[in-house]
């Protein structure tokens, strides 16, 4: 399993704005999340990976192909689902995907056969015979996804794919992305601002900020466990519960509608159940505390330059 892509000291400036600053990273195959505040350089990095822009300094490879010399070849093995709404005008769904396949280099027969297959996979049934302009947002996203995978790329790049979709559509798209990445052996680069979506689909994330790499790693590893700290949610009023715990030596802290309880090392976790029984409360949620992806993100972004 080689690297999915690798960038070495890549720098790219647009006039006075430095979009990427000495960026070096090597990423394994699999489902990768790309996170970062606005203006961090995510779009520029995606364009670099697609071989669309000339970088000022540095180099890199995508799927083993050099981004300086083999830009056109890279795009044969990469599929891209852009963020904005875009479609080929005046075609029905099946022609849209067939055309996309032909533009990738497939013969017309291959493209049409494959288009039907891929449209079945994204669950666009009879709608494929209707003009694309009449589709809902969710369907448009799915047909964009279909047109990106019609030539069976090894890497699929998704830029804010769940933007503007209703919950049902979002779930379907995330389900498709997860299936492609985990069961069908396609590598995914998932760029999104919605952290729960990234967590659903990806195992590995990279955080960019101000053109630099701020953090990277498996989500599981980055979410540190906090020893002896538990997140507890109580039905009804938690003041009494918190009061009981502090009386018995624990420290508590409120967070949204849960309570973070730090149990001293010499006590066991049972103190929580004692508290519940004695104060007559129901514990509805109990888990050892781990950072959320949001906290990982903020910690990464807050680091000074």
């Amino acid at each position: 399993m080689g690297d999915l892509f690798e960038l070495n000291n890549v720098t790219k400036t647009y006039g006075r704005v430095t979009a990427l600053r000495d960026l070096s990273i090597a990423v394994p195959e699999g489902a990768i999340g790309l996170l970062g505040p606005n203006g961090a350089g995510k779009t520029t990095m995606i364009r670099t990976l697609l071989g669309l822009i000339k970088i000022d300094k540095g180099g890199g490879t995508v799927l083993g192909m050099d981004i300086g010399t083999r830009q056109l070849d890279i795009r044969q093995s990469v599929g891209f689902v852009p963020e904005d709404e875009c479609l080929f005008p005046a075609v029905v769904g099946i022609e849209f995907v067939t055309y996309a396949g032909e533009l990738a280099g497939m013969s017309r027969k291959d493209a049409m056969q494959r288009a039907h297959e891929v449209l079945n996979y994204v669950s666009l049934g009879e709608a494929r015979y209707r003009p694309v302009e009449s589709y809902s947002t969710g369907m448009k996203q799915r047909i964009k996804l279909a047109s990106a995978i019609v030539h069976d790329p090894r890497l699929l790049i998704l830029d804010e794919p769940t933007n503007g979709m209703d919950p049902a559509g979002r779930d379907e798209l995330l389900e498709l992305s997860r299936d492609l990445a985990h069961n069908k052996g396609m590598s995914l680069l998932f760029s999104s601002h919605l952290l729960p979506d990234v967590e659903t689909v990806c195992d590995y994330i990279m955080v960019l900020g101000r053109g630099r790499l701020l953090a990277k790693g498996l989500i599981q590893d980055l979410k540190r466990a906090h020893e002896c700290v538990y997140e507890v949610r109580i039905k009804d009023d938690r003041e009494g519960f918190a009061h009981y715990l502090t009386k018995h030596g624990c420290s508590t802290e409120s967070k949204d509608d849960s309570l973070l309880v730090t149990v001293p090392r010499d006590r066991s976790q049972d103190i929580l159940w004692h508290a519940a029984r004695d104060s007559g409360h129901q514990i509805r949620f109990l888990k050892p505390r781990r950072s959320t992806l949001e906290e990982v993100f903020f910690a990464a972004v807050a680091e000074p330059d």
Partner: protein
Amino acid sequence: MDPIPTCEVVGPAEVETVVEFRAVSKWYGNVIGLNKLSTRIPRGVIGLLGPNGAGKSTFLQLATGQLYPSQGAVRVLGQPVWNNPGINRFIGLCPEQDAFYEWMTGMDFVSTCARLNGMGRAKARAAAEKALGLVGMTPNMNRAIRGYSKGMRQRTKLAQALVHEPRVLFLDEPLSGTDPIARRDLIDVIRDMGAAGRSVLVSSHVLHEVQALTSNIVLLHRGRLVAEGNVREIRDLIDKHPHHIVLVCDRCRALASRLASCEDVDGIQFLDAESRLLVQTRKPDTFYARLPALSLEDGLAIREVYSEDDNLEAVFKYLVTK
């Protein structure tokens, strides 16, 4: 960022119900937008949810007086909204569409909106500065909107909605396109506004954002009201879908045999041999009340308790499946 001032009662007398729909229907030709909808929206932050085509945009347009109901009546702060320009002093709207005068600076735009609401020039500029400070746009407010990123445009839209300090705010997808940092800041701003006594109705597709903002929701589907109120209460009332609660215990099989003798347990499933149990119950109250005593019994210490479907996403899915 500056703190939000508690709003004083100006204009209509303080009412508990801020937005009221009485048997409202609205159709466009043959297509129905809302179908005999009756609801009373209280103060605080309320989430307006629904799949595509549920009627959320129709709802917002009726509530802000942009549309006239085909049937029924809409009242905001006790007054009818249609043809009532006076009420706009107390209403703020942050629409979903992105339409600015691109050549203006953010400051110009928001102060112009303030002046359109009746403020004098100096007062408008001061209010605009305050509003832009609230949403975190102070460093960028003197640049042309043409150069703004999506997140900045969203913040400017929010600023123009609250520049005249309205009593009622209608926000349509206010956080779309914002990065996690801006999202956290804006969520704090909206929550503070709700806490300060304003009413904020937030329409959004992103369920976990709504969950971070509030536990009170109004759920629409096919133009009708499906549910309103607190999410957990609604969940408890959905009988058709028993609660799925996961318990983690070292001796899960012993725990399971104890639970099997309880009447309120409908089903027990062993999950991937990691000492996890999935319990189904239709009486969550009784079940949870039982847990502390159970856990303290010899050796049955329960290490984790959680429910995957006790949240807004589950409520949405259960109530709105086609």
